[in-house]
């Protein structure tokens, strides 16, 4: 599988994403923000960082970059797109995902490991996560408080678009397990078509035991499985 990992000025998790994909034997390349096409990519990762210095609003400037127009087209055609941290912010600003990410409720930058409960296995980003498995992955953000208005939230729930919620180690959705004040502990969502997802935590930083956790691999394994299924379907 070929992954394109976007690179904006001040992306800083781009190399981590490339490393994670290669770790599993797949290929990944960096795609500069001025490029007009995602080329032969099977999937796109919009990585974490502080694209364009987070000026104006996180992700607000990145969404107008040439490469994001290509990503939009790729997503419209059913391509898989995963946004991590700043990538999640970029995807909401671009309108590829509903809602917005605002300042953490305590105004602090949180850099720690948290626990994630997977809400549904019904997505290309969660299908391989073992049932009941609570993922331990790091977060590192100052503006990760997910917000959507009531109507949007109702729609997210009705369509089963909430993929991950912050929980305690046993999977309870407590307020103290919520690091940023996100609405209903929401850590990650997908779009209605289920081919675009975003999350604030960093699965790419949790793919090797050496890094303290390899739970992030389940999210990557899910994407690989979805891409393989797509290829088989295409060949048939």
């Amino acid at each position, binding site marked *: 599988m070929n992954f394109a990992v976007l690179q904006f000025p001040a992306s800083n998790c781009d190399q981590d994403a490339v490393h994670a994909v290669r770790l599993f034997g797949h290929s990944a390349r960096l795609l500069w923000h001025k490029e007009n096409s995602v080329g032969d990519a099977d999937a796109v990762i919009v990585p974490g960082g502080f694209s364009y210095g987070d000026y*104006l*609003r996180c992700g*607000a400037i990145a969404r*107008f970059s040439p490469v994001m127009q290509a990503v939009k087209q790729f997503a419209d055609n059913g391509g898989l797109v995963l946004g991590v941290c700043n990538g999640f912010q970029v995807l*909401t*600003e671009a309108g590829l995902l509903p*809602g*917005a990410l*605002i*300042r*953490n*409720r*305590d*105004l602090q930058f949180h850099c720690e490991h948290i626990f994630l409960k997977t809400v549904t296995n019904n997505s290309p980003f969660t299908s391989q996560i073992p049932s009941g498995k609570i993922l331990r992955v790091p977060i590192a953000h100052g503006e990760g*408080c997910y*917000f*959507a*208005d009531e109507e*949007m939230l109702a729609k997210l729930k009705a369509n089963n678009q909430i993929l991950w919620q912050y929980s305690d180690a046993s999977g309870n959705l407590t307020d103290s397990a919520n690091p940023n*004040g996100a609405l209903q502990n929401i850590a990650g969502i997908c779009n209605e078509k289920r081919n675009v997802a975003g999350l604030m935590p960093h699965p790419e930083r949790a793919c090797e035991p050496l890094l303290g956790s390899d739970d992030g691999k389940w999210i990557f394994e899910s994407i690989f499985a979805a891409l393989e299924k797509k290829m088989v379907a295409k060949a048939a």
Partner: protein
Amino acid sequence: MKAKIIVTPKKAVLDPQGKTVQTALEHMGYRGVKAVHVGKYLEIELEGDDKEAARKSLNEAAHKFLSNPVIEDYKLEIID
């Protein structure tokens, strides 16, 4: 010609900055503060003197880029 745009968080959106400033004001002894909302102020210098055309294009820009309608409101004013 100049445009002034004030961007503020929507009332329904959590505004931890506003809350913190409000608490600080109270601690400093400033009484009677009901609420504080922290936003952004943009001053845009413009060429020409067609106010209506400027208003139209800046309204579009404010909606599309300078504010995020999901979480923010804006006010636009054009002055000489």
